[in-house]
């Protein structure tokens, strides 16, 4: 079995992939825990959850591929891959003809375009600023005193969306509060937030040369309001895979599988670059 572990800034996501079944890979289990201070410990917890779901013992794991900002922090990894490569790989597995990807996590926004062969053609990530990423919504939900899980669906009920002009995840707070005190509904505020986030994302997507439709992954993809805002802003179809937040972990596992097979097949190891660190 292959484990793909995505160590994100907010959550650690793990996927267990079956490597036995010929060419096709199947996901046997998933696990997610909040990223704590001790990355290794949290990663083990996430792995344990996934193993539980797969009803497998830890010894069943033959290969571990890590990704995400903490990819270097696990001592027990076999390979580490960036979240962009693994996200692209995961999407290509789920949507073989995919053209462009948007991945919005807790602190990051990534736009990726794929070439016809499904490889990463271009990508852009947000700068040293949390504007436009998932934490913006987490904060907004907090100010609005609604559970995060409901934010996406509430936004769908908006009648008159109120745009947010501040790009700063922190300063937007006073704007949101102003809207509240002016009597704007929570739905309209949320919808406005999604619209401005979609605006920002569309800029990134344009810069990587998005052409057709979009696959949207990462934790924020679970929020329907954001999906709709993107569809409206971009005028394209937006696909969200089930378990959108696990796509990077899946991609990492797939790449791990590929490497393991290659290593088993050939005596010489291929690729290797960053992996075979000195």
């Amino acid at each position, binding site marked *: 079995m292959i484990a793909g572990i995505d160590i994100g800034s907010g959550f650690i996501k793990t996927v267990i992939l079956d490597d036995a079944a010929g060419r096709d890979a199947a996901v046997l289990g998933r696990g997610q825990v909040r990223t704590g201070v001790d990355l290794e410990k949290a990663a083990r917890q996430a792995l344990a959850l996934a193993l539980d779901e797969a009803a497998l013992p830890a010894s069943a794991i033959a290969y571990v591929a890590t990704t995400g900002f903490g990819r270097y922090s696990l001592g027990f990894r076999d390979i580490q891959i*960036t*979240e962009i*490569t693994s996200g692209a790989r995961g999407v290509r597995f789920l949507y073989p003809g995919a053209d462009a990807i948007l991945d919005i996590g807790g602190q990051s926004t990534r736009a990726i375009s794929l070439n016809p062969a499904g*490889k990463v053609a271009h990508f852009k990530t947000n700068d*040293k600023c949390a504007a436009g990423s998932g934490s913006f919504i987490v904060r907004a939900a907090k100010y609005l005193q609604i559970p995060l899980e409901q934010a996406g669906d509430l936004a769908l009920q908006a009648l008159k969306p109120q745009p947010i002009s501040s790009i700063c995840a922190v300063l937007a707070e006073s704007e949101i509060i102003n809207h509240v005190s002016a009597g704007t509904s929570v739905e309209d505020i949320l919808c406005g937030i999604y619209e401005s986030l979609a605006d920002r994302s569309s800029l990134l997507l344009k810069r990587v040369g998005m052409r057709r439709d979009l696959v949207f992954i990462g934790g924020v993809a679970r929020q329907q309001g954001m999906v709709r805002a993107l569809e409206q802003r971009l005028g394209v179809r937006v696909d969200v895979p089930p378990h959108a937040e696990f796509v990077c972990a899946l991609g990492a596992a797939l790449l791990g599988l*590929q490497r393991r097979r290659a290593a088993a097949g050939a005596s010489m190891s291929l690729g*290797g*670059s*960053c992996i075979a660190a*000195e």
Partner: protein
Amino acid sequence: MRSLSPRLLDIPRCVELIQDLNFAEVARWKAEHPGGKAIAYFPVYAPVEIIHACGMLPVGLNGAGDRLDIQHADARFGSFICSIIKTTLEMAITGRLDWMDGMFFSTICDSARNLCFVSKRNFPEKYWDFIHLPQNAGSPAAVDFLEQEYRRILLQLESLAGRKADDDALRGAIRLYNHNRELLRDLYALRERHPERLRTWELYSLLRAGCFLPVETHNAGLEAALAELRAGAAKPRDSIRILIEGSFCEQPPLDLIRLIEEAGCYIVDDDFILGRRWFTQDVPSEGDPIRALAESYLNRSVYSSVRHDPRHPRPRALVEKARSRRADAVLFLIAKFCEPAYFDYVLFKQAVEAAGIPHLLLEFEEKAFTFERSRTEVETFVESLLFD
């Protein structure tokens, strides 16, 4: 760390020179040459031969990297201005350039030009000058103009030095720098052929150390380094061959260069410290030396984002370079807010895409000290070329 030649110029020593914000080497030169003047120049190019012929030490300033906390310069240059402008000014304000007797700027960008005059106001006791390098290389009038411009500068330097520089002194300087550039060309060729033998951050250190050393010393060090490297051997790594474009002025932090290599890249050509490697052929050391320098600037220069030459479009030159170095990809390594590099990126990008060469744009600031984002971007890029 490998040591190249313990006595002359080993890599750790070079790194130390680059990072020395006290410019001890320059101070030492001044102590050894009482009354001698040190003339700094801002990137990209300056006619160092003329400075040398006047018995002065040319010092190439390329910012201060992350070793300087910017406290004053932000107030003078504000937002949306590249780091090197601020680190240069910060060094001056905090007294780190007190050794300097004068400084040259030239036609590279608007920020640098304004810095020349802001510096002049703040430090009126020093000699500041702006060299107008012609941008109409196709016109015969340009050579004549540049020759006159160089003569103007020569006069200024001579009066600062209190002595004349005759043609022989100029020719001698030309020969010394010709040799320096030849050695650097050899080192670059060696790295291109055997990137496993000479890492780019090492080559870079050797190159940049020359900015602070008398050319004679640098030549001797490079000769020794070259001899040693030619004899050496190393195990090839599994890396892609990339070419770096866009770092002609502000320099990326050494750690970033290292990181790029560690992420799985062989850098097979670059435009670091481009001014020291400006000429593609030797400057003629016969005839009128000033005319030779002017004429070489217009007819024997490398292509560069800060020099317009209608006869040789830069995008084409970049593609030719990538082909001749057998580069798998181009890494546009651009200083944040560097306007000439940003503009050229647009046409470069079109050209490399038309030529089917993969490329990545990576921005940096010389004052940065963490590179998480850059690491992710370079690794992804390498992965996209390696995995299928």
